[in-house]
């Protein structure tokens, strides 16, 4: 009897040890797949209330000297001012612009040139935003937290699925062309063997 209890106790021990091992094993498996795509687009938000207003897919350039980014289009979270003001410090660059403000908090985000001298034509009628007043978020940013799920059990993302589907349609259409070609060859061969 006493022996049996001892045995059970021993068995429990080994179980605990193996469990401990497996825990250590799984924690050592934690790895991050540093995916940080450098070409991923960014979205731009108001620096104060973080209302998103545009993204780099409508990128129109930047002016590093004035610390501005230029966007071709934004959404209605940017309010285009009605009162034009004179912009430009030098006589040469003087022109008329209106303020761009955030709809959420009225924070000044930049301006839009309504008229420009020749040297500033690339900025006319597009959205000039002051980098210091806006925030950005890059898609798939690497400093995200990843769900604590084993690699094997991780579900694939919708984006990955889209990609697989695209590849599959490519393969399918390729298979159709190859099938046609094979059929031609077959017919050809049959004709040839028929003549001989």
């Amino acid at each position, binding site marked *: 009897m006493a022996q049996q209890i001892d045995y059970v106790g021993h068995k429990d021990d080994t179980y605990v040890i193996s469990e401990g091992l497996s825990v250590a094993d799984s924690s050592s498996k934690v790895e991050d797949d540093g995916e940080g795509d450098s070409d*991923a*687009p960014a*979205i731009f*938000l108001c620096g104060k*209330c*973080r*209302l*998103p*207003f*545009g*993204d780099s*897919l*409508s990128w129109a350039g930047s002016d590093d000297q004035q610390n501005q980014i230029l966007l071709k*289009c*934004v*959404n209605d*979270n940017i309010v285009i001012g009605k009162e034009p003001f004179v912009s430009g410090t030098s006589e040469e660059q003087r022109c008329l612009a209106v303020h761009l403000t955030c709809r*959420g908090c009225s924070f000044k985000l930049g301006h839009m040139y309504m008229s420009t001298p020749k040297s500033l034509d690339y900025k006319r009628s597009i959205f000039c935003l002051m980098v210091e007043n806006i925030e950005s*978020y890059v*898609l*798939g*940013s690497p400093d*995200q*937290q*990843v*769900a*604590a*799920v084993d690699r094997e*059990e*991780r*579900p*694939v*993302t*919708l*984006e990955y*699925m*889209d*990609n697989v*589907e695209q*590849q*599959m349609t*490519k*393969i*399918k259409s*390729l*298979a159709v*062309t*190859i*099938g*046609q*070609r*094979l059929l*031609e*060859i*077959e017919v*050809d*061969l049959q004709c*040839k*063997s028929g003549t*001989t």
Partner: protein
Amino acid sequence: MSEGKCFLSDCEPCDSSSQSSMISVRLRDMEDSTEHSVEYEKCSVFHCAHSKCNLVLGDSLGACGEVKSLKSIICLKISKDVRVRGKLEMNKEGPLKFCTYNVLECSGCRRFVGFVLHSTPHHLSSLRGLYLLLKEAVNCYMLKSCIIVNASKLRFEHRPLGRSISEMKEDLEAQLKQVNLLKDMLDSRLGHCHLPLSSTVSD
């Protein structure tokens, strides 16, 4: 030698050399495109829907689908600004009946934005450990169009691929069979040709 050459050129129907080269070009194209390109125009960024918060909670690149019964988006990755509350909650009724879970909160406004299931009944077990963002608590900024809509108006359904993959496998296997058949035909024809070659030449 000259007879062999003649036979090869005979085998190639004159109009299909372009088709063959097209096939090889497309095959090469398939091999080259191992690194996949993302269609960013279709992507969206998830924001806290609480008015005046708008904190970024994640983006569609980390989304894996949705759970209709829980009205939430399944995410593999979320932004660091989503906090997992340490305390384990539990439900005795509703769609989360008999589940225990950790609440996800927005670190900006501390509002409830989702949960991570810890223990579940059978039907929810595949969702354990994943981030589930409540659709109602999430606004989506759609890239390219710049539109913002609540996630409850969008669908994040995943399409099961298993069936179409096995269908494609069947198609390709049938094609392989056809190739083998052709190979056999060609073999027998070649074997056939070797003997009466002189006769064809004399013809």
